[in-house]
């Protein structure tokens, strides 16, 4: 049965399902995910007391997996911006059941990703200096401004459509949800009654945020790329780095949303609301962005490599033929071609096939960021110098594993408190009228 034919009560029941008393599997999963996260906290405490000497970083490879993780996880958050903002602006109604999951994923991955800006510092306790006496010409200061603005926008964008949904939780009969959940929802729903003027204001706020969040997202990954691109290092100093990073973020962000949607759809039996259609449509977006990313990569390497200058050739050689060639070709096949093929071929375009493709993209795009950060540093800038080497230490590996585990962990906890489906948006597109709803104007439809 299509989502459009579901009654409002059915939607509400499904959206609030994770709010009910958790089962054994919830606690088991929570415990399993807490282990690596806890271990990561221990590793970070170890790094704080001993200093960055516990990493494998050195004076030549002074940036490594932390910076790769920072860029990758902030990139994951772009899925939220695409699905919710772009699809909202284009009135693609199929988005309704997945917007909440996409936006929650955006917040969670953004929080985890940006925390690596602190993890990689030699003196995190001096962070306040960035706010009190910033030097405006520094790309790090641009990062601070961009990330914090984007974080604020992401929170607002997640919160606005939650207001009517929280009112549903608030008004839910006892027994369905527990008292603390209702009390919290009461506070956060800001007296939502579903009045026409409230709906109008919400609609206005969401439209404004949808428009705002797109340039903000573009800005964040652009300035992240410029921290590399404004140096004179070969492999980093590139004019296309801004858009190249933005496309990478969108590509991996959509893949992240696919994984989250597929996982929670299965875990909470939401198949009747989140159909295969949603996952397939997302995979088409991922396919398009993947092709775009491949094009950017080709364009970057061709223009860098063709003149075969003394500066660029060694970096490209290391990447394509030498030390990093196995990783690079693994990435190109595993993240560039394979996921695109899985989505393009109708036979493999099934939920398991798409989930496999998205997993390859999510993992592979971390690897790609590693290949962007590290190889240019391994080569000495003074010709006579030795090549450096870098292989992450157990501390780095532990902290990054914790970051990966923290995403599902925080999402599980988030959906214990907030509805997993956007009730308000789903009811708006639902064709079974239980109350008179203002018909959204749809000049253009995806579905």
């Amino acid at each position, binding site marked *: 049965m299509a989502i459009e034919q579901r009654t409002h009560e059915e939607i509400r029941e499904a959206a609030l399902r994770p709010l009910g008393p958790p089962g054994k599997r919830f606690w088991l999963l929570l415990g399993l995910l807490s282990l690596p996260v806890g271990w990561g906290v221990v590793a970070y405490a170890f790094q704080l007391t*001993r*200093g*960055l*000497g516990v*990493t494998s*970083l*050195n*004076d*030549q490879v*002074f*940036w490594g997996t932390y910076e790769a993780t920072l860029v990758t996880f902030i990139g994951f958050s772009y899925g939220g911006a695409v699905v919710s903002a772009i699809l909202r602006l284009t009135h693609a109604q199929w988005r309704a059941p997945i917007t909440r999951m996409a936006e929650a994923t955006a917040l969670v991955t953004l929080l985890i990703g940006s925390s690596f800006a602190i993890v*990689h*510092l*030699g*003196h*995190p306790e*001096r*962070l306040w*200096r*960035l706010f009190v*006496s*910033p*030097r405006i*010409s*520094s*790309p*790090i*200061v641009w990062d*601070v401004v961009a990330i914090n603005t984007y974080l604020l926008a992401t929170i607002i964008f997640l919160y606005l459509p939650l207001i009517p949904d929280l009112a549903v939780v608030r008004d839910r009969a006892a027994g369905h949800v527990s008292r603390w959940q209702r009390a919290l929802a009461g506070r956060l729903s800001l007296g939502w009654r579903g009045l026409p003027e409230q709906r109008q204001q919400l609609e206005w706020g969401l439209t404004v945020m949808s428009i705002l969040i797109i340039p903000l997202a573009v800005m964040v990954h652009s300035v992240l790329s410029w*921290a*590399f691109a*404004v*140096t*004179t*290092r070969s492999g*980093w100093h590139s004019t296309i780095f801004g858009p190249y990073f933005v496309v990478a973020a969108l590509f991996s962000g959509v893949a992240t949303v696919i994984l989250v949607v597929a996982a929670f759809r299965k875990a909470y039996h939401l198949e009747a609301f989140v159909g295969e259609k949603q996952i397939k449509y997302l995979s088409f977006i991922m396919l398009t962005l993947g092709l775009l990313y491949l094009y950017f990569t080709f364009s970057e390497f061709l223009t860098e490599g063709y003149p075969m200058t003394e500066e660029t050739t060694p970096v490209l050689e290391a990447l394509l033929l030498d030390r990093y060639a196995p990783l690079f070709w693994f990435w190109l096949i595993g993240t560039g071609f394979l996921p695109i093929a899985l989505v393009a071929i109708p036979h493999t375009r099934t939920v398991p096939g798409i989930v496999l493709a998205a997993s390859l993209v999510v993992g592979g795009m971390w690897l790609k960021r590693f290949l962007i950060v590290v190889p240019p540093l391994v080569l*000495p*800038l*003074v*010709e*006579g*110098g030795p090549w450096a080497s870098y292989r992450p230490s157990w501390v780095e590996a532990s902290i990054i594993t914790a970051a990966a585990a923290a995403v599902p962990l925080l999402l599980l906890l988030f959906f214990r408190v907030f509805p997993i489906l956007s009730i308000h948006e789903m009811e708006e597109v639902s064709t079974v009228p239980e109350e008179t709803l203002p018909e959204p104007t749809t000049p253009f439809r995806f579905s």
Partner: protein
Amino acid sequence: MSKDTRDKGSNLQLSRRRFLKGAGITAVASAMAGSGILKLLSQAEAHEELDNELAKRQWVMVVDLRRCDGCGLCVKACQKGHFLPEEQEWIKVYEMETTTGRTYYMPRLCMQCENAPCLRVCPVSATYKTPDGVIVVDQNRCIGCRICMAACPYDARYFNWNDPPPAPVGLGGPRPELPVPQQKGTVGKCVFCVHNTREGKLPMCVAGCPMLALYVGDLKADLATNGVEIVKLSMFLKDNDAVHYKGELGTRPRVYYIMGRGQTAES
């Protein structure tokens, strides 16, 4: 007098009264804070005077590659004097190859770029230029983000990954001009031993070079010395066709190289 101008006049009076009232408050306030302001002003003046005094010298270094035999004693002198860990070579000797395949040695210091890429990218202004043209790092300010290391085209910056070796107290540091001992989690680099040059002493590497290949000089006085001979800087550079290393990057280094392959050392 028309009504309009009268009104204007009264307005004026009112504002004048208000102004006087305001001025009175300001006068009382400044009388109370008077000594404080004067103190601050005189401090600022003293600071500016010191800066102007320091700016009368602009330090440069000249490396005569004809004399360098790559012995590495400059590195040892620097590391010993600054209590550096082994992997930090603020002056580092690279083995290079000429186009025709002969090896030569090139000591690399911090170039103290006039247009310093490392300085622009520091987010907290921990890296700054002293009035006498030396790029220093305030290790009390540095947050350890290492973007200066990314920006430096000469690999001349080093991070204190671990605690630096212990250094005796009473050397006059740590301060940006003499970062001894260094702080863990911050960036360190060659500072031309500006604490020495300001007192008329040689940088440690210059004093430690047995081949007399390193010169320290002052652009303003137009003089340079390797500890034994004194040369007129501009003529010395011109006569020997001195060059910058990677000058094409627009960094405008304060280190000059006289090209060669240790031939003076061989003979």
